[in-house]
C-alpha cells in the first residue's frame, strides 16, 4: 500500500479517537475538525514563519515538530476549556449543533485572520521527514500512544465516571460524580488530540487552509465512529482507517466511487447498528485467539 494513503488512514484513526472521547461520556461533539484545523495552523505558521522551527535545507528539525505539537494541542485544549463550560450544558443534538457552529466560527476566523493566508492558506510547510514512511512511523507511534491512553482509561475511575455519565448522567451526579468537570475533561482531551493530529497533518500535506476544518469534515469524522463503533476504542480506530482508505481504494471504478462510498456508509449502520467493533465480537475474537496456539502446541489426544 502507498505510504501516503497509509498516513492519511492513521490521521483518520486519530481524528476518530478524538470524536470517540466525548462520546465515551455521552457527548456528541462534532468539534474535532475545528481543533484539527487550529492545530494545523499552529504548526504551519510556526514552521513557515519562525526560523528556529523552519530549519535549514530540505527538512525541518524533529524537535521543532514536537514543540509544535505541544503548542497546537495546548491552543486547541485552551479553546476547548474556554468554550466547554457553556457549550457542554447542552445535550444530545443541541450540543452537536453548537459544535458544528464552533467549527464554522473557527473556519471563518482562520479564513480571515491577517496572517493565515486567506482562502489559499499556507504553502511550503517544511518537512520533518524526507519520506512518507517517516510520517507513517511517527504517526503510528502517536496512534499507539493514543490507543494506550484510551485502553488505560478503562481501568481509571475517570473512565468509569465517563461510562456512568454516558449511561445516566443524572444518576452519575447523584453518586457524587462532578459531571460538568468530567465532561469538560473529555472535551478538552478530544480537542488536544485533534490539535496534535493537525500539527502532524499540516507538515504531511505540505499546505494548510481553512478547508481542513469544515462541516463536511465533521460529518466524515462522525461517520468513522458510527461505522467502527462508539463503545470501545478499537471501533473508531478501525472506522477511521477503513473509511479513509475506501475512497482511494475505490478510485479504479471512477465516478461510481463516491456512490459506492455513500452506499458503504449507509449499509454499515444498517447491518452493524452498533458499529463494526462491539464487546461481543471482540470477546469472540479473543476466544479464537486463545484457541489457536493451543491447537498448534499440544497434539490432541486420540
Amino acid at each position, binding site marked *: 500500500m502507498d505510504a501516503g494513503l497509509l498516513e492519511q488512514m492513521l490521521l483518520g484513526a486519530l481524528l476518530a479517537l478524538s470524536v470517540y472521547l466525548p462520546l465515551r461520556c455521552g457527548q456528541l461533539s462534532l468539534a474535532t475538525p475545528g481543533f484539527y484545523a487550529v492545530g494545523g495552523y499552529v504548526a504551519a505558521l510556526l514552521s513557515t514563519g519562525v526560523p528556529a522551527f523552519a530549519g535549514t535545507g530540505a527538512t525541518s528539525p524533529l524537535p521543532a515538530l514536537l514543540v509544535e505539537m505541544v503548542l497546537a494541542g495546548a491552543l486547541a485544549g485552551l479553546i476547548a476549556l474556554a468554550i466547554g463550560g457553556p457549550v457542554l450544558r447542552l445535550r444530545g443534538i443541541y450540543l452537536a449543533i453548537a459544535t458544528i457552529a464552533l467549527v464554522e466560527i473557527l473556519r471563518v476566523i482562520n479564513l480571515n485572520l491577517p496572517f493565515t493566508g486567506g482562502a489559499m492558506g499556507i504553502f511550503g510547510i517544511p518537512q520533518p521527514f524526507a519520506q512518507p514512511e517517516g510520517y507513517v512511523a511517527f504517526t503510528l507511534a502517536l496512534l499507539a500512544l493514543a490507543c494506550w491512553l484510551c485502553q*488505560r482509561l478503562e481501568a481509571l475511575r475517570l473512565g*468509569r465516571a465517563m*461510562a456512568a455519565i454516558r*449511561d445516566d448522567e443524572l444518576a452519575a*451526579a*447523584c*453518586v*457524587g*460524580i462532578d459531571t460538568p468537570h468530567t465532561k469538560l475533561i473529555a472535551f478538552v482531551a478530544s480537542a488536544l488530540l485533534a490539535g496534535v493530529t493537525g500539527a502532524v497533518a499540516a507538515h504531511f500535506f505540505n499546505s494548510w487552509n481553512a478547508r481542513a476544518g469544515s462541516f463536511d469534515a465533521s460529518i466524515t469524522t462522525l461517520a468513522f465512529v458510527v461505522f467502527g463503533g462508539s463503545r470501545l476504542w478499537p471501533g473508531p480506530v478501525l472506522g477511521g482507517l477503513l473509511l479513509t482508505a475506501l475512497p482511494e481504494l475505490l478510485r479504479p471504478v471512477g465516478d461510481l466511487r463516491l456512490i459506492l462510498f455513500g452506499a458503504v456508509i449507509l449499509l454499515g449502520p444498517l447491518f452493524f447498528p452498533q458499529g463494526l467493533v462491539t464487546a461481543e465480537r471482540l470477546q469472540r475474537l479473543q476466544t479464537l485467539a486463545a484457541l489457536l496456539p493451543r491447537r498448534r502446541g499440544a497434539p490432541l489426544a486420540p
Partner: protein
Amino acid sequence: MSLLQVEGVSCRFGGLQALAGVSLEVREGEIFGLIGPNGAGKTTLFNVISGLTRPSGGRCLWRGRPMQGMGPAAINRLGIARTFQNLRLFESLTALENVLVGLHHAAGAPLPGALLGSGSFRRRQGRLKEQALELLERLELAPLADQRAGELAYGDRRRLEIARALATAPQLLLLDEPAAGMNPAEKEELRLLIGRIRDHFALSVLIIEHHVPLMMQLCGRLAVLNFGERIALGSPAEVRRDPRVIEAYLGGQP
C-alpha cells in the same frame, strides 16, 4: 440530633403546586417514612433534598447548615445518597462496576501511577474491588458481580441501586419505593434488609413506600403527604389514627 431538616419547602411546576410548605426532620439513626397517595409530592421532596429540583420556597438543612444552591453531586458528598423510583442504573456496566462508580471518591489515585498501572495503584484497585464485592455480598448480589446491570432481574436491580448508593458512604439513605413490584415474601426480606443496613452502616433512612403495613413495621416515625401538604407526622400508631390520613386514603364523609 437532627441530621436533615426540611423547612417549609414549596415547589411549583407551572399551575401545579407539587409541594406546599412541607416541613419535617430526620434524626440520626432513625428510619423515617414518607407515605401518601400517588401524586402527593413524595418524589418531588426527594428531588429537592437530593438537589435535582430547586424548591420555589423554603430550604433544607444538613446538620443545621443550609444546603441551598448545592447540586446533586455536592449533596451526595455531604452524605446523602438516593435510589430512584424507576431505577436508574448504569445499564451497560456490570453490577460490580456500578458499585465501583459509587466508590468514585474513594478511588482517587495519583495519575502517573494509575496510567502505568504501578504496584500501589493495582493494590489500591484490588482493595476497592474487595470493598465493592463486600457491598454486593451484603445485598446478596455477589454471584452476579460480572453481569451487566441491564440484564439483571428486577429485584436484583433494586438491590443493586441500594448497593451503589451505599458505596458513596452516606449518612442518610433516601429510598424511593424500594419494594415496588415485589411480592409479599420479597417485601418482608427487604424490610429486614433495610433494618440490617441501618444497623451495619449506622445511617439514617428516609423511605417512600406505598405498602403501608411494611412502613408501619419498619419506620420509627412517618410523615403523610397529600396534594403537596404534610397532613400528619408522628409514630406509626399516631399516624394510623389520624382522621386526615384516613380521609386521604379512604375518602372523606359525603
